């Protein structure tokens, strides 16, 4: 219940406050979202496999977002920001698809 409430609260918060994302943070927002999505899909899969652990979920979420942003930041400093972002998106994308496939197998047994 609480996670769903949190989801709705977050959407409402974003819509209501509509804060301006600071300019220096804007390049990291998309990659942070992809990383967060990976953590959320992973959590959903773990839930289905009955191994969900809130501590692991929170830590994986935060570390995913921070590391992804850090890699992009480092890439920007080195002048290979877009290439590193691509790498991060590829890796996280594969993980998201693999986890989504696992969830699908769980639900449909196919």
């Amino acid at each position, binding site marked *: 219940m609480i996670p769903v409430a949190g989801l709705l609260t977050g959407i409402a918060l*974003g819509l209501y406050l509509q804060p301006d994302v600071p300019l220096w943070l804007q390049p990291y927002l998309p990659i942070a979202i992809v990383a967060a999505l990976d953590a*959320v899909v992973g959590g959903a899969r773990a839930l289905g496999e009955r191994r969900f*652990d809130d501590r692991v979920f929170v830590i994986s979420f*935060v570390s995913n977002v921070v590391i992804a942003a850090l890699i992009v930041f480092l890439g920007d400093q080195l002048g290979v920001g877009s290439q590193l972002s691509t790498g991060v998106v590829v890796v996280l994308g594969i993980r998201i698809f693999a986890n989504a496939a696992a969830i699908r197998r769980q639900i449909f047994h196919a």
Partner: protein
Amino acid sequence: MTAHLTGRRRAEGLLDEIADSALDDDYYLVRAGEPRDGRTTNTLTVGAVMVLFATLVTLAALQGSAERPERIQERSAMITDIATGRAEVATLQGVLARLDREVRSLGDADGLDGRRTGEAPSLGGSVPVRGPGLVVELSDAEVPVGDAPRVGARDLRVVLNGLWYAGAEAIAVDGLRITSLSAVTSAEGVVQVNYVPLASPITVSAIGDTSVLEQRFRAGSAGRYLDARTEDDGLGIDVRAAEDLALEADDRVASLEFAEALEEAR
């Protein structure tokens, strides 16, 4: 690690490895202590993370939709510009076609032939002419020591061609009329016109519509070439308008011995 924890085959490639260990290994580590059934989603920390996640996604979505109208506006403005440009081109092409027809019909009319014949001697250079025009003065670069870049035959030829192109009707270089018999050469670095050596500064006088001459001369490739020569080598180039220029005839044109005008070419 995942592979042996789950008992699946070990991945061979990097991408396989990523796909195989898609779920964080920590989920597979059974925590020591309390036995859990794994359904501990109803905690505040999970809720907080979900709030954060939803806020992030909403923000990104809002930002994307905020930027979209601007982009669409830009795009439509560009499309309008293109349409306007195309319409303008079409209009100008129509004008061009109309003027082309006009020129042709005027050319067919009688008057022009007579005018052309009347102008032939002055254009040919067999009679002295006078009128308004342009004076171009070329001088060697001034360098305190050593060899200074000098005005060459090529520079003079560029100036002459540029002036003809700009619409000059008669040209003289240091008083020597330029005609179909003229030669611009150089011998040991000294510019010669009709095999008469010239010293810097060389004055080129051209008769024509002053403003059109000057504008077209400067805007053409000759103007650009001379600008580059001034900038790179320090040649002195002075272009000025002249109210009244008098150019002498080239006698050689008047005394052609072998070439005869054809009747039809009148």
